[in-house]
Structure formats: structure tokens, C-alpha cells
């Protein structure tokens, strides 16, 4: 028998969870086992993800969740690797719990939790599944099932597992726009009919878990901002928990971060034209978008990758290591954005994804080579266009004469330097 409070285990932001937090001791006085659970949440085994239906276990679960979030907010920042680590761990935990509960016959409990976050309808039954008057062809129905089974690597199915893989629900795709925004779902991967996305229970767990994961990130951000606003140091207990979670980050992430702080590889800033230097120095409110997205992004990507040998349509055609984008091209753009007044991403955080969009990776903040080609790799505008669109950035020097594109300036200056014996 599951008590009403058990819903908090599936939704740590539910009223049931808030009540538990409201009655909890301060974090400094938290029992050691809860502190340990907070740290270990990022590496729970499937068995450990399951919470027993008694009040004590439910309380420990909720308090450890909040301790984990506040700990991370105390030692890192929104969108940090730590935040991503706990957000992903929360997603995996919630998803497994839904899967497990459904398998144990607790479909109603699962659906009660889901319906609080996602508006959904059940497909009309009959000879064929139907939604909004449209029949879902029988073949498509089973193909959707098989796709999901394949995605989860399930070859043999039993009667307890199979129902989770049958298309059964319809959700308005606009109701899951938040997941599209965070790239937790992709429109082209949804089966859409008349505005309805046709989903299996398995999809629902996935979407629902991702909703909770996104809300976890938002919660960390709100705690971080609260800490920054108060000006006070976070409590020692939180810092300790955050520090321990941080130490669990995979080593390669630390390496990547360090690498990202290194000076840009083969880009030669001494050959940059005046407009690019002005954009790199940060600009005022009226020209930020243009300077960062339309000038720096194409300039640095084309200057660094220097595509040759074929038409430049995809970054992946010219590089085989995404770190060139992540660690050499993106950092100076992001730093310039920070130097803008006001900082570009402070009021327009969505523009981070726009940078990679303009490099051809689609709307993402975490590009991979496989994403290359999802959007167009925008070219550097000509000087005349820059003059028209952002005249304040165009302060030509002598070398600009007879040059029509800032990239020409860069390549030409570099080449002249090499020819003069200065090295490439």
C-alpha cells in the first residue's frame, strides 16, 4: 500500500514534498545517512533508486534530493557539469521508478504523477487506435512499439513489460515544448498527427523524468541566484555535500574544462580585423546580437576551421574532433558575450544555442559532430553588410582597403605574414 506522500518520490517538487521539507531540520543538523544519500544519489544502482513506501524512507529521499541540489548550487553555477550530473541522475532515477512501479501494477500511481505535469489523453480503442478522428494505421502502431523496444535493447518481452511499449497516449506537442527547448525531446522523433504526439507509456516516463530533470536544473539556478543575491556564504554542510558531488565528476570533464581555458589553438588574434577585435572586446546593448552571432561566430569558426577542398556546408566535413568547436572556437565567443554591456547571455541565455545553430549544429548548447549539418553553417557577412547592420563596429584600418570580407582580411594578413617569413 502506497501512502499519499509517495507521490513526492516521483515528483520532488510536488506539494507532498514541500510539506516534508517544511518540517525538516536545518541542513546543518541533517542526519549523516541523509548526507550520504545526497552525495550518492548521482551513482545509485537500480535497486537503490527504489524507495520503500514508508514515511521514513520517503522523507530521507526528499531531504537528500534538496540537500544534493543546494549543495551543488553552493559550489558551482547553473549549467555547470555538476548541475548536469545531478539533473541527469535525477532523470534516470525517476524514469526507473516509473518503469518499475508500472511493472509492479502501480499504473494509477504513475499516471497520477504524470498527469500533474503533462496533459494527456488516451487513444480511442476499437479495431484501431484512433486520435482526434484519425486512425493510426496498424502497421505504424506496431512499428512504434518495436522502435521503443529496440531503443531499450529489449529482445524478449513478457506481459509485464510489453504494455509499456504499446502506443496508448496522446499529448499535444506544444505541451512538451519545454523539453524541445532543452533538447530533451526532438520534434522529428515524435509521431505527430493533428498536433498530437502519440506516445507509449515508456515515452511518458521518459518525458516526465525529463520534466523533473529540467525543473531540477531550474531549481539549482534559483538557489544559486538566491545565494548570489544574499551575498552570504553558503553553509558549511552544503559546501561539503557540493564538494563531494563535484569530486564524483568523471575525470575527462575536468580535463576538458582545463583545456577550454587554454589560449585558442591555431587562431591568430594578431591578424583579426578591427570589427572582430571590437566585437571581441564586448559591445553595447544595440549591437550585441549582431556582434556575437553574426560576426564572431562565423568569423572564428571559418577562420579556425579554414574549410578548403570542398564546399563549406558542414563543419564535420573539415574536422574530426569536436573539441575544436567546443574548446577553441566557442570560448572566445562566450567570453566576448560576457564582456558585453549588459552581458549578452544574462538576459538572453537562449542565444547560447543560437551560436551553435549558426555553426550548423542546430539549436543546441552541447554540439557533437553528428549534429553538424542540422542547420546551415552561416557565412561571414561582407563588410558592406556589416556597415549597414552595425555601422558602429566598422572602423576600417588601412589594411581594410580593397577588402570586402573580414575573413579575407584575416587570411590575407596571415598569409602575408607567412610569406614574409613570420611562420604560419
Amino acid at each position, binding site marked *: 500500500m502506497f501512502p499519499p506522500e509517495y507521490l513526492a518520490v516521483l515528483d520532488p517538487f510536488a506539494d507532498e514534498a514541500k510539506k516534508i521539507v517544511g518540517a525538516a531540520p536545518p541542513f546543518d543538523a541533517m542526519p549523516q545517512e541523509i548526507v550520504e544519500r545526497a552525495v550518492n544519489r548521482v551513482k545509485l544502482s537500480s535497486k537503490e533508486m527504489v524507495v520503500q513506501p514508508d514515511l521514513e524512507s520517503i522523507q530521507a529521499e526528499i531531504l537528500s534530493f534538496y540537500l544534493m541540489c543546494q549543495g551543488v548550487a553552493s559550489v558551482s553555477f547553473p549549467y555547470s557539469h555538476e548541475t548536469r550530473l545531478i539533473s541527469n541522475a535525477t532523470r534516470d532515477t525517476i524514469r526507473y521508478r516509473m518503469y518499475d512501479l508500472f511493472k509492479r501494477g502501480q499504473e494509477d500511481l504513475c499516471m497520477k504523477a504524470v498527469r500533474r505535469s503533462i496533459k494527456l489523453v488516451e487513444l480511442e480503442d476499437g479495431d484501431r487506435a484512433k486520435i*482526434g478522428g*484519425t486512425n*493510426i*494505421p496498424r*502497421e*505504424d502502431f506496431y*512499428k512504434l512499439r518495436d*522502435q521503443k523496444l529496440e531503443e531499450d535493447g529489449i529482445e524478449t518481452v513478457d506481459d509485464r513489460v510489453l504494455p509499456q511499449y504499446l502506443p496508448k497516449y496522446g499529448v*499535444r*506537442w*506544444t505541451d512538451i*515544448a519545454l523539453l*524541445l*527547448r*532543452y*533538447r530533451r525531446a*526532438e*520534434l*522529428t*522523433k*515524435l*509521431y*505527430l*498527427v*493533428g*498536433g*498530437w504526439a*502519440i506516445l507509449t507509456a515508456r515515452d511518458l516516463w521518459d518525458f516526465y523524468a525529463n520534466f523533473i530533470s529540467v525543473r531540477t536544473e531550474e531549481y539549482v539556478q534559483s538557489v544559486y541566484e538566491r545565494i548570489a543575491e544574499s551575498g552570504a556564504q553558503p553553509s558549511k554542510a552544503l559546501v561539503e555535500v557540493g564538494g563531494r558531488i563535484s569530486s564524483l565528476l568523471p575525470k575527462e570533464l575536468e580535463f576538458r574544462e582545463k583545456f577550454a581555458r587554454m589560449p585558442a589553438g591555431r587562431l591568430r588574434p594578431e591578424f583579426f580585423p578591427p570589427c572582430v577585435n571590437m566585437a571581441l572586446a564586448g559591445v553595447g546593448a544595440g549591437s550585441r546580437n549582431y556582434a556575437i552571432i553574426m560576426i564572431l561566430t562565423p568569423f572564428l569558426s571559418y577562420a579556425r576551421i579554414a574549410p578548403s577542398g*570542398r564546399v563549406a*556546408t*558542414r563543419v564535420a566535413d573539415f574536422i574530426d574532433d569536436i573539441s575544436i568547436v567546443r574548446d577553441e572556437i566557442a570560448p572566445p565567443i562566450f567570453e566576448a558575450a560576457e564582456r558585453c554591456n549588459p552581458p549578452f547571455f544574462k538576459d538572453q541565455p*537562449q*542565444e547560447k*544555442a*543560437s551560436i551553435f*545553430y*549558426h555553426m550548423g549544429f*542546430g*539549436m*543546441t548548447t552541447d554540439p557533437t559532430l553528428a549534429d553538424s*549539418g*542540422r*542547420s*546551415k553553417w*552561416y557565412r561571414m557577412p561582407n563588410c558592406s553588410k556589416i556597415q*549597414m547592420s552595425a555601422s558602429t563596429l566598422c572602423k576600417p584600418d588601412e589594411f581594410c582597403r580593397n577588402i570586402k570580407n573580414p575573413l579575407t582580411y584575416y587570411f590575407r594578413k596571415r598569409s602575408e605574414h607567412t610569406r614574409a617569413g613570420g611562420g604560419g
Partner: protein
Amino acid sequence: MEMREATPEERKSFYTEEWNKREIPNFILHTLSLREFGFDLDGTGPSHRYNQFTTVEQLEDFMRNRAPYSAFTSVALYERPSAREGWLKAELVLDIDAKDLPLKTCGCSPGSVCERCIDGARKVAMEFAETLRGDLGLRDVNFVYSGRGFHVRVNDEAVMELEQTERGQIVEYLTGSVIPTDITMAFGYSKVFRERVARTFEALDEGQLLKVKGLRKSLVHRLMAEKARALEAFRTGRFEELSSFKDMGPKTFRQLVEFLRRVNSEFTDGKVTIDTKRILRLPSSLHSGVSMKCMFVRDIERFKLEDAVPKFIREGERP
């Protein structure tokens, strides 16, 4: 069809004699005071920005007195449009510019347009609208002839608050620029992708196909000779049929599909769609660069370019 720049006198005569505020579509009229207006007053670019009109009569006075070279209005609604502050929401727009269509069969030089290019853009706009309505369940889908192509402007509440990432995903869906996991489903993106790929393949000529990396000349000849069979395979999702063409190995096939996908993505400028603060030509205004009216299109299937020709051009053509 004559497409030439309008003189200042012609602009003046257009705005005093022909322009009618009733030609501004309701989706703009009803939100007029919440939109930013921008103008290009002399053909040097839309630098006269941050304008707000609280009534259509104020706009009318401006248009008649200034006879702008071009007039634009924001896709976004703002609390304070004259400061471009307090963003409330924005239409979902798709810009299909006839001059930028990736495959032209009319022989137009790059950057120029003819009636065939414009009709090509019209068909693309219709395809997008069908998917917006059929797959995405949107209802308030409007068409505007921009003077050199079409704008599809969606005003359903459900999409107006979407941010850039979601809008970018809509572009991917509509254009068919992502290769789906399953190509054979009757509905959904699988069907959209098949249709777009087939449309693109149909428009390709031998020269364009020869540019696809890895496609041998002999294979290109065969694909062209048996285009109907290849097209049918694309349309039905029976891609295995294509492997029966000699020299069409799995790698070559992947390169062909990748090429088609890439061309698909160029049928609209995604940059316009993801820009939630964009200004677009005001329907009813004059596109002075080509002397055409930018106009709201009630029935896209029956759109006639002649309807967009201003009086000063029509009268000039008379013997």
C-alpha cells in the same frame, strides 16, 4: 512581369492613390499597437526603427506622408514596442524567398527572380502549411506574398511563446532536414521526410546530381533515365528499391540521402524563423525594389502574381 525599382514619384502615387489600410490583415490590425514598425525611407536600409502606432489612422498618416521605400512590422508583440522592450510573444514565421530557392529550373541568375521562381516558392509555402496544419495541428496559418517570395505566418497561441530552439526544431520538421529513424511510417515525420526528399529529387537535373560526392556518372545516368522508378521509391519509403540501381551501394545511398537532406534544409531561411524579434514586410506595403505589393494572400492556391502589381506598373504597361 516587370520587376524594377520604383521611383520616389511612383511610391508617392502608390501611397496616396492605391494603398489601403483595409488590406492590412487582421492578425496585424488586431495587435497593431503592440508591434514595432520599421521603415526604409529612401532605399538605404530599414534604419528608421522603434516606431509604434496606437491606431491604424496614425499608420495611415505616416504611410501617406512619407511614402516609404519599404515598410516592416515586427513578428513580436511588445509591452513597449517603441523601445522594443517587454517581449510578449511572436508569430511563428517561415520565409520562402524565391531568389534563394536551392533548385531553380528557370535559369534565373543567382539573386534574381522570375514568375516561375515565385511559383516555386508558393508551392513550398503550401507544403509547409499542409504540414503545419496536418502534423502540428495549427489552424491560424496565414500567407503573405512578400514581393519576392512568401511568408508563412502562424498566429496560433500555442506557438507564439515558443523560443528559438523549438522554432529551430519546427524548421527541421517542416523542411525534412533530419534523416528519420524509420522511413516507412504512414504518418508523422517519416511521411514528411519522404515527401520532401521526393520533391527535391524530382527537381534535380543530371548536372546537380553529378555534384553529389560518390555518385558515379553511370549511376547518375541511370537515375535520370529511370527517374520515375527512383521517385516512387522515395515517395513510398521503399528505399531498398534504389539499391537495385547498379553502383548504388549503401555508402553511395547514404551520400545521396544526405545530399537531399541538405538541399531540403535550404528551402527556407531558418535564421528568420528562430529570430523572435524579426521585422517582416508589412502586408499592403510596396516592395519598391521590385515594384510589387507585399500582400496578404487569402487563397494561396489561386494566387496570381498580377494581383500584386501596383497600378503605376499596370498603367505603364498599357499601350
